[in-house]
């Protein structure tokens, strides 16, 4: 299970690193470093497996029904990436500790960084495609946080948003691709997918699936035409760029190409799409890199170009090209990270990144200059540096590939052009910055950075050199297992030697070197030309245009649909519902009246129904006089609950009655601050229209009810009725459903209720509204706050009401009642005291702090559920037993009653919290009446 720890540790560490920053700036750096080391240590027991040719798979069942498990794998490819993510992470953590300024929050930085590290590890170690996608999205989110780390800067925010939009869209497309892929082979497990290459490539849906997955990979790896987000992500702090754009984020895309290489490659669609995108990216990146004056801009475009190179290699599709691709992933990560770090040092020391001003730094920082030169030489592909080796392999592969195709010279020629530009921009990075005259108008006087800031660069540069000179003794074993992981078989023979004799690849390298030097020598006219061409190929403008268009479209649609008129919204809503319902019903061809026999109507029911209709109509007539309408509506609720009683729904009746009174109290509390009369705002024609629409809606609902009630009723209800006593130990099916069959829903519902109560409390807590000092006709309020008779007799009622509540609660499992109704009754009983005796009187005698009540309720509900887990049953399984109590007789004890107690407490707490705080809003408006009433 150690792989789970590898992935989990950075996520846990993210919180820790953020937390320890309160004990000092540097604590979080230490913590982040420690966490990364621990993750590395957790990985070590698994290290030998890939070298022995094994693929480790560790599995924890999660949602087996959906084929979704938490399952991780470690093979050569995963191992290489895990080591890069963790190793590079350590170096970046060390570097950032010196890079970040005093005012930057360290805890936040390292928290985000570890979050990102964990997500990245999740991608490279996932065995399940859906799991991989989740981590993929997590990298999009965490990189958004990292890129926008300097939140006060507009460019950081824009850049982060752009990266999120582009990679997020890609992730969405990839989800579609993964679903198609998973459906093809019948499993989302990579092992199964990787073993079914033939099946997948011959599937009719192969092409759409490929396009969708490639969209994900290309957006992440900044392939043309989605490359534009990467340069804008340079607004991030340089350690972030060094991490994201060398070894991690952008490599996730090429990781995916490598991961699915055995199943997706080898078709013409793959070759066309991947080679096309790779080649275009390679060329565009190399071209733009040369003409960027910003150091990091240059590095950004060179990153794009190198990613294109790797993509191109995977697109070629031969096993040897894949080996070269993996090799270049390693090499690019080392030299690009060191170059970003060097650029960060230069930026840090000079206060600017503009290469037109930074010149001749050799005099100030020769040591950093030497390191940068080594890394830049590796980037240019100079012999004896690691970039040379993979680039040679790359050149060789393009030549081999072209030999079998028409237009055979085009691909090698194009990559040589890219090679020439690569040499030229590498040369510019060194010559412009460290030589080329004196610095121009720098904000700071540059000098060598602190000792430890250079250490990560030194390590990376040493790797560049060691790999470049002694490849067989350094990188060879790792490369071998990683290539095995990509190909899922042993890779073909290849030779990592520096000297292969004079062959096409060597000649191409030489041309690139010489051509690059020549181009750089003649750069002035080229720069002028590039300035003129600028803006022609601005992908950002296209993106912005698209975004603007999308926003305008959304705005237009919203303006059409939402004019700010509630009547109109309701009209659209009701008419669509009616149309859909009518069309659906007529389309079905079923008669409106079903074949069920009607029951005879008795006189009392008929009377109550007619009364109900009359009162409802009268409420509408009176609705402008708000208080009167409220009084009449009280009768409406009463009649409805009578009907519930008549038709054997006593639980509903009890709930309806309690809710009715709570509603009246709530509305009265609100009405105090509102106008007492609703003015007539609509013209007559509109009112006629509204009446028509209302009649249509009511008629529709009535027709629906009629057709449902006249049909035989078969539903899941029978199951509940049969299983209520044997399964839940209660005769009251409604209550057993609430606390047992659907206990999980109820837990969710009381959580929502608790949240609503707390939310309303938060909004009302400090709100003080002046209430009117006289009623609507200008009469002052009565002086008698709490009439004696009311105050005294209501106190007498409290124990009675609580008794009723306890009674309803205890019998709830078998007869009408239960926690919810009992909670409402208790709340009303207490509200009665507030009404009759006032807030102060009540608060002296009862706690005014209701949060613990709500919290205790939720906790009891949750613990009851968890208790069944302890006994090995599913969450919220109810246990019950019959106890014989003397005198009282047989008594049933169900664990559900504890759960019901939780419901009860939450209902009491939330209802009281809301009502009392609504009542307290005006407290300050009766300044003279605050003394307790001496009744």
């Amino acid at each position, binding site marked *: 299970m150690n792989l789970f720890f590898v992935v989990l540790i950075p996520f846990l560490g993210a919180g820790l690193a953020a937390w320890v920053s309160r004990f000092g700036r540097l604590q979080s750096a230490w913590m982040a470093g420690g966490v990364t080391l621990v993750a590395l240590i957790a990985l070590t027991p698994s290290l030998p497996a890939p070298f022995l040719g094994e693929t480790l798979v560790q599995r924890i069942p999660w949602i087996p029904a959906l084929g979704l498990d938490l399952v991780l794998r470690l093979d050569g490819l995963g191992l290489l990436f895990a080591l890069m993510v963790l190793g590079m992470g350590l170096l970046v953590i060390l570097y950032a500790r010196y890079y970040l300024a005093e005012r930057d929050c360290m805890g936040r930085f390292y928290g985000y960084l570890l979050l990102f590290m964990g997500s990245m590890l999740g991608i490279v170690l996932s065995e399940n495609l859906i799991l991989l996608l989740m981590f993929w999205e997590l990298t999009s989110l965490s990189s958004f946080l990292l890129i926008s780390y300097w939140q006060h800067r507009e460019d950081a925010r824009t850049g982060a948003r752009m990266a999120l939009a582009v990679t997020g869209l890609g992730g969405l497309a990839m989800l579609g691709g993964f679903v198609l892929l998973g459906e093809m082979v019948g499993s989302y497990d990579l092992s199964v997918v990787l073993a079914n290459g033939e099946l997948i490539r011959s599937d009719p849906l192969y092409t759409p699936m490929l396009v969708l997955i490639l969209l994900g990979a290309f957006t992440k790896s900044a392939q043309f035409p989605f490359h534009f987000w990467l340069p804008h992500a340079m607004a991030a702090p340089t350690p972030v760029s060094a991490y994201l754009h060398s070894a991690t984020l952008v490599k996730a895309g090429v990781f995916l190409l490598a991961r699915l290489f055995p199943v997706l490659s080898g078709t013409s669609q793959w070759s066309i799409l991947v080679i096309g995108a790779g080649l275009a990216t390679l060329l565009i990146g190399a071209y733009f890199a040369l003409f960027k004056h910003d150091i990091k801009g240059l590095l950004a475009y060179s990153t794009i170009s190198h990613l294109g190179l790797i993509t191109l290699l995977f697109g070629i599709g031969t096993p040897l090209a894949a080996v070269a691709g993996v090799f270049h992933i390693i090499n690019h990560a080392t030299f690009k990270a060191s170059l970003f770090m060097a650029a960060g040092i230069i930026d840090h020391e000079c206060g600017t990144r503009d290469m037109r001003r930074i010149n001749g730094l050799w005099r100030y920082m020769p040591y950093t200059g030497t390191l940068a030169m080594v890394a830049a030489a590796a980037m240019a592909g100079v012999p004896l540096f690691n970039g040379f080796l993979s680039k040679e392999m790359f050149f060789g592969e393009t030549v081999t590939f072209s030999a079998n195709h028409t237009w055979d010279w085009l691909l090698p020629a194009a990559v040589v052009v890219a090679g020439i530009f690569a040499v030229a921009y590498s040369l510019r990075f060194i010559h412009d910055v460290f030589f080329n005259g004196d610095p121009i108008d720098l904000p700071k006087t540059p000098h060598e950075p602190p000792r430890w800031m250079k250490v990560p660069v030194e390590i990376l540069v040493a790797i560049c050199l060691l790999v470049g000179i002694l490849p067989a003794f350094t990188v060879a074993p790792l490369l071998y297992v990683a290539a095995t992981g990509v190909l899922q078989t042993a890779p073909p023979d290849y030779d990592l030697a520096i000297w292969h004799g004079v062959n096409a690849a060597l000649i191409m390298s030489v041309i690139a070197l010489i051509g690059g030097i020549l181009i750089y020598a003649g750069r002035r006219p080229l720069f002028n030309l590039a300035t003129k061409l600028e803006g022609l190929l601005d992908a950002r403008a296209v993106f912005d245009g698209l975004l603007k268009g999308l926003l305008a479209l959304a705005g237009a649609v919203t303006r059409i649909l939402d004019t700010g008129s509630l009547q109109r919204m309701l009209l659209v809503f009701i008419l669509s519902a009616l149309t859909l319902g009518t069309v659906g019903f007529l389309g079905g061809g079923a008669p409106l009246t079903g074949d069920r026999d009607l029951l005879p109507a008795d006189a009392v029911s008929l009377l109550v129904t007619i009364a109900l209709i009359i009162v409802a109509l009268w409420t509408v007539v009176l609705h402008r006089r708000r*208080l009167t309408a409220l009084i009449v509506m009280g009768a409406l609720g009463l009649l409805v*609950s009578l009907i519930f*009683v008549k038709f054997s729904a006593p639980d509903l009746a009890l709930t309806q009655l309690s809710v009715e009174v709570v509603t009246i*109290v709530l509305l*009265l*509390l609100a009405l105090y601050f509102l106008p007492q009369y609703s003015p007539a705002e609509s013209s007559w024609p509109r009112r006629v229209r509204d009446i028509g629409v209302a009649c249509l809606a009511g008629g529709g609902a009535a027709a629906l009810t009629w057709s449902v009630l006249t049909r035989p009723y078969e539903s899941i209800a029978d199951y509940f009725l049969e299983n209520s006593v044997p399964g839940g130990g209660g005769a009251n099916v409604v209550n057993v459903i609430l606390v047992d069959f659907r206990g999980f829903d109820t837990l969710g519902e009381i959580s929502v209720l608790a949240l609503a109560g707390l939310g309303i409390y938060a909004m009302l807590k400090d709100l003080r509204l002046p209430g009117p000092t006289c009623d609507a006709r200008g009469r002052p309020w009565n002086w008698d*706050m709490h009439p004696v008779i009311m105050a005294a007799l209501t106190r007498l009622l409290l124990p009675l009401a609580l008794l009723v509540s306890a009674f309803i609660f205890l019998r709830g499992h078998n007869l009408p009642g239960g926690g919810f109704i009992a909670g409402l*009754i208790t709340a*009303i009983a207490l509200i009665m005291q507030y*009404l009759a005796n006032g807030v102060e009187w009540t608060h002296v005698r009862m706690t005014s702090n209701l949060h613990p009540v709500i919290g205790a309720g939720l906790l009891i509900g949750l613990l009851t559920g968890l208790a069944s887990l302890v006994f090995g049953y599913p969450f919220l399984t109810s246990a019950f037993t019959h106890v014989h109590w003397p005198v009282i007789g047989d008594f049933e004890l169900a664990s559900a009653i504890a759960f019901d107690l939780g419901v009860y407490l939450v209902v009491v707490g939330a209802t009281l919290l809301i009502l009392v705080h609504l009542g307290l809003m005006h407290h300050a408006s009766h300044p003279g009446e605050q003394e307790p009433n001496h009744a």
Partner: protein
Amino acid sequence: MLSIAVSIAFALVSGALLLSLFRLLRGPDKPDRILALDTLYINTIALLVLLGIHLSSSLYFEAALLIAMMGFVGTVALCKYLLRGDIIE
């Protein structure tokens, strides 16, 4: 004899219900309506008690109990609103 008595009682209580309803809808003043609502609640209790005797079922008492309690709270809240505007103070 009991069933005849219950039938007569049903008719009388239903009549009472209708008369209270008439006052509720007619008004004219707010205290009239509140009084009518209160009476309506009590009439409903009578109706439920009769229903219980009629069907020999004690299932309706909880509803009657709640109506007695809720009717009172509703009346108090509404009267308090008329008197003070502010019902929880």
